[in-house]
């Protein structure tokens, strides 16, 4: 797999998950979590941007074009991040599964011989420490709750694709509507300069 391909998988994961996490702004169970999830979402989109920048150089394009100008089928994200999960226990379950897998993924990248890749992974990882803390806090608080454990087992099969590219084949029907909304402004005036 080329570096660009790997970068796109992770960048797409972070961008789409960032989008889903941002959907909680204003409707989380309480104010502190409105802020927490907004903040986490912002970080994830920031990570996506940095990853797209690196991939863009390899592919001779720009980060914006990679983030927004591909068709939904061309995104490399895992299905887990595409799901709209308007249930708190499912959202926390996904948060837990994603952070667990991402820690392993970033850990591997930090060992890479590719200095740029290793460097970026290290930078992202330092911020992810706080995401992991948040996911762990919530996991410890909810792990005895039947609704949570059910949600966890429901989503767990989808988490395998986070670390295994071969399992990333195709998307759910939820990605296209997400993409419509996410790229609506950009597509409204093609080739606009902002």
């Amino acid at each position, binding site marked *: 797999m080329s570096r660009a391909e790997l970068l796109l998988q992770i960048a797409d994961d972070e961008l789409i998950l960032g989008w889903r996490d941002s959907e909680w702004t204003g409707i989380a169970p*309480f*104010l*502190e979590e409105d*802020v*927490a999830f907004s*903040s986490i979402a912002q970080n994830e989109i920031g990570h996506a941007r940095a990853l797209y920048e690196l991939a863009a150089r390899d592919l001779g394009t720009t980060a914006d074009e990679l983030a927004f100008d591909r068709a939904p089928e061309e995104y490399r994200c895992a299905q887990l991040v595409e799901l709209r999960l308007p249930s708190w226990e499912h959202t926390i379950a996904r948060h837990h599964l994603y952070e667990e897998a991402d820690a392993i993924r970033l850990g591997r990248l930090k060992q890479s011989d590719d200095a740029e890749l290793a460097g970026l992974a290290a930078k992202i990882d330092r911020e992810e420490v*706080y995401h992991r*803390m*948040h996911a762990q*806090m919530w996991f*410890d*608080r909810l792990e005895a709750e039947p609704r949570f454990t059910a949600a966890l087992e429901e989503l767990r099969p989808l988490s395998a694709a986070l670390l295994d590219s071969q399992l990333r084949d195709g998307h759910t029907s939820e990605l296209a509507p997400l993409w419509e909304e996410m790229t609506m402004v950009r597509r409204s005036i093609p080739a606009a300069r902002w």
Partner: protein
Amino acid sequence: MTRIWEVFRQERKGQAFQHAGSIEAPDERFAEWYAREQYGRRGESTALWVVPREAVHEIHDFVDELKRNYHRVDGYPLKEKLKEARERAAVTAKNAAHFPRS
């Protein structure tokens, strides 16, 4: 069962901690995470204290039965004395103007 926590922040090392606001969280772990988020995300503080509201003891009432106004800053009629002192100084300056410094 949520609890209230008070957050104090230190602007620069060595300065006094000042009350920054409060947080709702079920336990210390959540309180610390939220405190970092609300009061530390932009590197605006060198340190934070996160304290359960129950640990803060408020005192409102102070006893002053004998009206010992000499304990207080406003105990003496300072404003009056300052006014008189300024007037005296103004007169002196007017007189001194006739004698320029060498």
